């Protein structure tokens, strides 16, 4: 008898939950689809009304971000986000979003994520990207005096043990362009890859060019950037798929580009980082 009561209760609970879920389903999708999005400050579809909520990973690194944690007051991406907020007429609020979570299904708890995320066609099917705001090349970092520092072509790199942070387009670059004989080692963070380079477990660390130069200048004593490789990759801001705010951010971004602000930001934060010899294909 008891069992029957439990079964009934369970069924009822299930139906109740399901019906609640259905009600929720109608609310978020109903607005914004189809018609032109107005980009006036008051019409912007924001996560938090009256604020532009922008996410990035923690820790965030210079030269992309400068200043106190979650209260960045500079850096290329930090300044760019502030500039976007400014043009949309909104105050800016920083939140933390680990990269691996940035493509989880469901509603995002921010307006967009800016975290050196490269735009790729596969990723674009799952999330929305803004237009590119930085042309990202791959960089190869090694310890001074090791044989790999003599490499000038992709072919020269094949025989070495390369490592990179997992989940990056650098890994894709290693696997598809360099195709090293020993495969690639992958690490949870660039810091781990750095430790492996220090310990001699890998011959070179591959990551985006700017990061390699940063590591060379501030983190790994006696390291050199072997070269950069242009992969035609663009960094983009990441939006939940179908978020109409993307249009308005793109509008602001194209203004920032056309009036020379983006160039200024690049000169200010990234100039020292981009003058590195290029690794050729053969």
């Amino acid at each position: 008898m008891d069992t029957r009561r439990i079964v009934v209760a369970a069924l009822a609970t299930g139906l109740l939950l399901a019906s609640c879920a259905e009600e929720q389903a109608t609310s978020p999708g109903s607005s914004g689809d189809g018609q032109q999005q107005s980009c006036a400050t008051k019409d912007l579809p924001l996560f938090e009304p009256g604020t532009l909520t922008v996410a990035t990973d923690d820790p965030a690194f210079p030269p992309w971000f400068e200043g106190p944690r979650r209260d960045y007051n500079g850096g290329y991406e930090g300044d760019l986000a502030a500039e976007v907020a400014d043009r949309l007429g909104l105050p800016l609020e920083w939140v933390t979003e680990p990269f691996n979570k940035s493509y989880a299904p469901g509603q995002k708890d921010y307006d967009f994520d800016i975290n050196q995320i490269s735009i790729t066609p596969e990723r674009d099917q799952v999330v929305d990207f803004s237009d590119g705001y930085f042309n990202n090349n791959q960089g190869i970092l090694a310890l001074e005096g090791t044989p790999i520092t003599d490499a000038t072509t992709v072919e020269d790199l094949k025989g070495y043990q390369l490592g990179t942070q997992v989940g990056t387009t650098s890994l894709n670059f290693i696997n598809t362009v360099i195709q090293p004989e020993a495969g690639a080692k992958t690490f949870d963070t660039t810091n781990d890859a750095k430790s492996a380079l220090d310990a001699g477990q890998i011959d070179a660390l591959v990551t985006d060019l700017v990061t390699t130069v940063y590591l060379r200048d501030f983190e790994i004593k006696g390291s050199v950037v072997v070269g950069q490789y242009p992969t035609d990759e663009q960094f983009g801001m990441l939006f939940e798929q179908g978020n109409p705010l993307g249009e308005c951010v793109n509008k602001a971004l194209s203004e920032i580009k056309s009036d020379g602000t983006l160039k200024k930001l690049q000169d200010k934060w990234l100039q020292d980082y981009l003058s590195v010899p290029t690794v050729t294909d053969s």
Partner: protein
Amino acid sequence: MSTGESGRDRDPGVLEPGTPATPQAAGRGSRLFGGRAVLISTTSTIVFLVVIAVIVALAPGSSIVGERFFSGFHLRQAIFGTPGTPSVVGAFFLNVRIFMIAEVLILALALVVAVVRSIPGPAFFPLRALAVAYTDLGRGVPLILVLYMIGFGVPGLGLQFFSSRSDVTYGIVALVLVYSAYVTEVYRAGIDSVHDSQVAAARALGLSRYKTMRFVVLPQAIRRVIPPLLNDFIGLQKDTALVSVLGSVEAARAAQIYGASQFNYASYVVAAVLFIAMTIPLARFTDHLIERDRRRRHVGAVT
């Protein structure tokens, strides 16, 4: 979930989950409750699963979650790999290899430490103290820290032989060090469970301390601790994934690479299925051993 679990010790007629409902099995217990228990447990299981399925299916994001976790296209790609991402199944062989090698080493090292810990006599105090310190440290320090210390620390030392091993080797060493500390305690429980009178009897028969341990204590001790040992090994199977922090691409890491490249989690589902496929046979085998041991001891009690 199973109604059989709690009543198993008292009522041998109640079925274990997964056991087919044969008439003999039901007949062994109370005739009144046997059939009904099966019926009730089956019904409640079905209802439970249906409720879960209904909730998931009607959830507002069910289609997107389904696409993100169970898309056939992505499951296939994750299994076979793409030019930019490794095959999760291929990477899983590294887990199996790490597990196989580590398991053998753990069984040996832990046995040595356990035996050292139970050597009597004041002269052996330093050895015993060392064994105690090792088990305390090994169980207390997080595996991930041991992995980092050995995987990045030892090669950093610049020693001749020890500093030029592969990251998989360092990973196995870290797993062996940590898991041996647990397994030592399992062995010790087994050794302590052998009654003192057995040792006294063996010594009275003229067996040396070594022979007493080797032929009287250990055979009984090890047989008793096989189920908890296997339990630890199931944990070990899953922890092989942690070796990836040192750089090698095993199944969980391959899944992560695929996920980040395609923005899809189906690869994690593939990895999970592989781990389950490795773990479940061992878990069932453990159950089987426990059951056999229980039956054997019951027989012993009657005679």
